[in-house]
């Protein structure tokens, strides 16, 4: 009897997948879908996942090399870059966008203009003490990169779709998902790269 139980247990152990604690993804998806069953049709698309979201969820943001390459290449193809002359907009407008956490919530009015809410996660101008720490500090961002056009392009790309440079980044894909317009992204980039912006001016 105990031998039988031992064999049974061993069989069970060997039969376990690599992540023994992971339930069947189809079952998880069914529970999720059922939990948002009453959502308005226009909102239903937010409940289902695209490929990046699937991979980054199942791997808990630790994709393997092939998955990371796939995510990065899809992301790269998604970026719509303005000409170099239009990369940097108005830093004052960018500051407002960085401060603004409105938009995209079911409690928002239909005509709410979304902000980037950068300060929720990042330190930027040193004089703003109400900043979050989910992302790295961006104080002195442009100054630390010598304000090069290459760095400005990289920053625009990152705000548009951060998975180009880091697969499974925690940051939203502001451009791809049209949370921010191209002009808004340029303004945020100006906030990061204009020498007169407090992000750089206050940074010694």
């Amino acid at each position, binding site marked *: 009897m105990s031998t039988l139980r031992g064999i049974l247990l061993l069989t069970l152990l060997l039969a376990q997948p690599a992540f023994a604690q992971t339930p069947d993804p189809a079952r998880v998806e069914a529970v999720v879908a059922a939990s948002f069953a009453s959502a308005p049709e226009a909102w239903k698309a937010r409940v289902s996942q695209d490929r990046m979201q699937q991979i980054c*969820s199942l791997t808990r*943001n630790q994709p393997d090399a092939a998955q990371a390459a796939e995510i990065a290449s899809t992301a790269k193809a998604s970026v719509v870059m303005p000409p170099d002359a239009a990369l940097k907009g108005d830093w004052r407008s960018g500051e407002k966008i960085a401060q603004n956490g409105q938009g995209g919530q079911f409690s928002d009015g239909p005509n709410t203009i979304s902000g980037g809410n950068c300060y929720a996660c990042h330190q930027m101008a040193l004089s703003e003490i109400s900043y979050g720490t989910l992302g790295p500090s961006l104080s002195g961002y442009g100054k630390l990169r010598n304000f090069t056009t290459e760095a400005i392009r990289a920053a625009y790309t990152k705000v548009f779709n951060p998975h180009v440079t880091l697969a499974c980044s925690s940051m939203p894909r502001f451009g791809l*998902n049209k949370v921010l317009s191209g002009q808004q992204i340029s303004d945020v980039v100006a906030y990061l790269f204009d020498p007169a912006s407090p992000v750089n001016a206050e940074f010694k």
Partner: protein
Amino acid sequence: MSKLLRIFVLCLLFPAASLRAQPAPELDLDKELDRYRAMINDPMANPGYLAVDRGELLWSLSRGSKNVSLETCDLGAGSGVLDGVAAGLPRYFADTDQVMDLEQRLLHCMRGLQGLDTKDVVARRFGSPGKTSDMEDLVAFISNKSLGMKYQASLSHPKERDMALIGEAMFYRRSAINDFSCATCHGDDGRRIRLQSLPDLSKPGDTAREVIGTWPAYRVSQSQTRTMQHRLWDCFRQMRMPAPDYASEGLTALTMYLAKLGDGATMNVPSIKR
């Protein structure tokens, strides 16, 4: 008597609610917030106890097509037992073959035991000024019957363990226009949104216990007693997801995942939060 005293203490307390507006260096602000939390953490000054009192009346109120009260509702420890039940929910119920949290179970008893059309109760699931919520009141009353007890996550049934794993998968599940998961904000130690400290709910321990042991809570900023259902609803709002369905399986799964992490919590409910 105790009600009058509570209201009196409340009047003394509320001028303190403006503390957060004072700009101060971070560390001092954290300390001030801790001091504020300690100051409001007083059962005699917690308006959540008004919800407890209303909930007590609702528990014994006869209504529904069968015109009976909820007093024989089985919340997991047998017919009508209230002491300690909240310290073991969510749990598996054989009669529904389902893992249920307190709100799901109460709706089940209202519909089955009382024959109550729960449309109105569900419409008032979250109270607002001038509109009380039967669900928030009942949860406050029933949870308070576990005050001071140790929370014991109910994980002996396979469906309970399954539910906790589904909740864990949901915790890491990214979606919607900002690609957020619960873990985006609650996956690490010592992180903040703006100046708001975020509990790390990716591992078991005191942080998770603090969460599981302090809901339902009276929210000073909302002037309402809120339950975990509302807390999760508000998280999904901030994640730019649609509103989750009240008392849906996914919310119970997330609660079960949290319950597993917060096993051993001391029940301080209803608590009072900023």
